[in-house]
């Protein structure tokens, strides 16, 4: 409203004030002010003084309030309805915004409750030695160090050690250096065999490494084990994911030396040492599965695969190496795998998940809670998973969770959306439990059910992917690609069964004046408890040939019997080692796990005693893998 020259300033101000106090729309306020100005002009014209006119008008606030109510009543019904709707919508939006902001703040400030100590649970799951001497680890440690497997061990870089590590075959260029190194370390190998005879591993995982472990694992690993314990109640630490298992790589290296020494013993006709090496390697593999870490299972399986291959190769090369009692002992060793190791056990994976959930979710005290989008916890978690999958950057992802930059604010404000979108704690754990159980069950399937492994994997991807990929964000990202471990379990059982069947056939031959059995059924029950099954067909395994032409074979993945041509066999390849462990995030975009590459579809020859090692020598890339173990 423009200045009104006919009205004193105090009355003009009063008109403006009343109009402003009405908080009406601009046009309505203008009408009010115009009418009041008219009123006061008339009052002045009637002889009232400005003060008198203002006093007679009354209280401006009351006038403004009454004017507002009356002006609103004057609006059209549609206008009033619309205004009311907008008002309530605005109020509702404000309430929702307030609630959202409050929930975001609640989620941000809600500190996760660490209700259980995962490291203690891991420790409790380990086999405990009844007597101090039952623990293999102190003896293994001594043996590993004596074998040059300590961290930064100078001997580890010697030519002999290098040759031995390459696990060459007899007759190769490196064989003399490797065997000379083995001879020089006979005492250490004896210590290794002594360790393997102990009933339990006895490495206190989940606790601080002993200072005596420092020369083997390094000071940094010992310190890391201390740090993990010191920070285990920090919600932004993931002690289960960061748990160091440095003994596994040493055990794998030691198992190669045992397998190599077994061949060396076979070459020199030392059947006792050959068996002792095979037995030690098998027991070492069982020890590595203490606590049932998935990676420990894969290492155990890889060790058994290697030692079975080398034992079979040696017996094919030296069919007369062992007498009947020794063969029976070797067969028992191959049949000695504990039942619980014959199938996958994902208890550690469940524990890992449960621990991650207690660090990323709120806790309602009854086993449930809401997902917290906590960048300070998620970034280290992503970094750890990427480093374990081999897909991440070298440096760990860390961040200051208290930063107030836009990303932090965006993360904070996204918290409620994430909380509503990502499955709650109970549903997530139930999902993980259900799928772990299904994967564990699948590990009991034989190799011929390979398609079921793939189907189960596809089913998981379908259930955890698509629209559920956010709902089950954590299982989808963190569940190991365990279907390959299921496959590895099936191959592991088949490999041991093949080795036992070969031992049984050799025992039959010794009892039958050098003649090989002609039917696998001949071996039952005198030499085997049951007819060995071809894992690819479900029928009895094939057996045929006289003398050097004798062979035992499976029809292989294609199910076609090619008469067990040992020269065509490529399936002795140890494809499934610990290095193949990957998280689902590392599976190729087309969904094809890397371990399921094209393989030759030929018979899998279990045993073909030709008196030489020709079929074990590297002739193609697959064979190259085989001899490197």
């Amino acid at each position, binding site marked *: 409203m423009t200045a009104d020259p006919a009205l004193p300033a105090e009355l003009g101000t009063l008109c403006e004030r009343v109009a402003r106090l009405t908080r009406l729309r601009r046009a309505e306020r203008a009408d009010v002010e115009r009418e009041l100005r*008219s009123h006061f002009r*008339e009052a002045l*014209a009637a002889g009232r003084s400005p003060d008198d006119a203002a006093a007679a008008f009354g209280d401006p606030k009351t*006038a403004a309030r009454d004017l507002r109510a009356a002006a609103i009543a004057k609006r059209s019904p549609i206008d009033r309805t619309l205004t009311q709707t907008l008002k309530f919508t605005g109020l509702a939006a404000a309430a929702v915004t307030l609630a959202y902001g409050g929930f975001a703040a609640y989620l941000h400030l809600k500190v996760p409750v660490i209700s259980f100590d995962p490291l203690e649970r891991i420790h409790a799951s380990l086999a405990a030695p009844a007597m101090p001497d039952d623990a293999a680890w102190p003896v293994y440690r001594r043996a590993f160090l004596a074998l040059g497997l300590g961290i930064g061990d100078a001997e580890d870089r010697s030519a002999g050690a290098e040759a031995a590590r390459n696990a060459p075959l007899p007759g190769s260029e490196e064989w003399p250096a490797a065997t000379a190194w083995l001879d020089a370390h006979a005492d250490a190998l004896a210590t290794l065999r002594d360790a393997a005879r102990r009933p339990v591993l006895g490495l206190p995982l989940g606790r601080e490494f002993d200072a005596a472990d420092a020369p083997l694992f390094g000071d940094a690993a010992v310190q890391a084990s201390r740090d993990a314990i010191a920070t285990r109640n920090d919600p932004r630490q993931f002690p289960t994911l960061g748990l160091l298992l440095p003994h596994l790589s040493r055990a794998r290296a030691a198992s190669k030396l045992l397998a190599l020494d077994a061949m060396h013993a076979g070459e020199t006709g030392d059947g006792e040492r050959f068996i002792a090496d095979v037995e030690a390697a098998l027991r070492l593999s069982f020890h590595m599965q203490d606590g049932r870490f998935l990676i420990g299972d894969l290492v155990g399986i890889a060790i058994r695969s290697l030692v079975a291959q080398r034992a079979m190769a040696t017996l094919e090369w030296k069919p007369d190496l062992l007498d009947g009692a020794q063969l029976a002992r070797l067969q028992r060793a191959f049949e000695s795998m504990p039942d619980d190791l014959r199938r996958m056990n994902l208890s550690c994976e469940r524990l890992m998940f449960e621990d991650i959930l207690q660090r990323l979710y709120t806790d309602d005290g009854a086993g449930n809670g809401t997902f917290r989008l906590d960048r300070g916890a998620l970034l280290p978690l992503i970094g750890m998973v990427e480093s374990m999958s081999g897909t991440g950057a070298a440096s760990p992802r860390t961040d200051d969770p208290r930063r107030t930059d836009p990303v932090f604010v965006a993360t904070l404000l996204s918290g409620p959306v994430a909380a509503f979108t990502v499955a709650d704690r109970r549903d997530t754990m139930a999902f993980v439990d259900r799928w772990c159980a299904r994967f564990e069950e699948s590990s009991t399937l034989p190799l011929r059910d390979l398609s079921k492994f793939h189907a189960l994997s596809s089913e998981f991807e379908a259930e955890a992917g698509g629209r559920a990929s956010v709902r089950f964000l954590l299982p989808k990202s963190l569940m190991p690609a365990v279907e390959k471990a299921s496959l590895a379990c099936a191959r592991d059982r088949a490999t041991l069964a093949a080795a036992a069947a070969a031992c049984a056939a050799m025992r039959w031959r010794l009892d039958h004046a050098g003649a090989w059995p002609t039917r696998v059924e001949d071996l039952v029950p005198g030499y085997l408890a049951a007819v060995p099954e071809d894992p690819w067909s479900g029928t009895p395994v094939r057996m045929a040939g006289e003398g050097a032409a004798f062979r035992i074979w499976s029809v292989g993945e294609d199910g076609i019997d090619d008469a067990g041509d040992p020269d065509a066999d490529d399936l002795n390849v140890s494809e499934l080692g610990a290095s193949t462990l990957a998280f689902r995030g590392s599976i190729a975009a087309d969904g094809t796990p890397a371990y399921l590459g094209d393989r030759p579809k030929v018979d899998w020859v279990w045993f073909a005693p030709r008196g030489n090692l020709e079929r074990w020598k590297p002739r193609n890339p697959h064979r190259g893998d085989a001899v490197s173990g």
Partner: protein
Amino acid sequence: MTIEGEFLRGAGPVAVLKLLERGEMYGYEIVEALERRTDGVLALGQSTLYPMLYNLEAKGFVAARWDEETAARPPKTWHRLTTAMGALGLTRHVWPNPPALAEVLR
């Protein structure tokens, strides 16, 4: 004597309407007429009048028009009874005791 409170809330609008039966009036004119014609009995607080007029407009009893300033007179808003209201005979319909009000207004 002045009539205030609840009574005024009911009497005021009727008194205004009664005044407007006689013709178009502007705000201050109504204030003065009420005070003059009732000997101060219905001396409205002046700030009360305009919300009352707005309410009467909202109910459809009164209409307003803005009269732009001319050389002869300043600008002002004129209020009058709507045609329908005038034809109905105001006091019989909106006031429970017309004789009493008529007495007040004489």
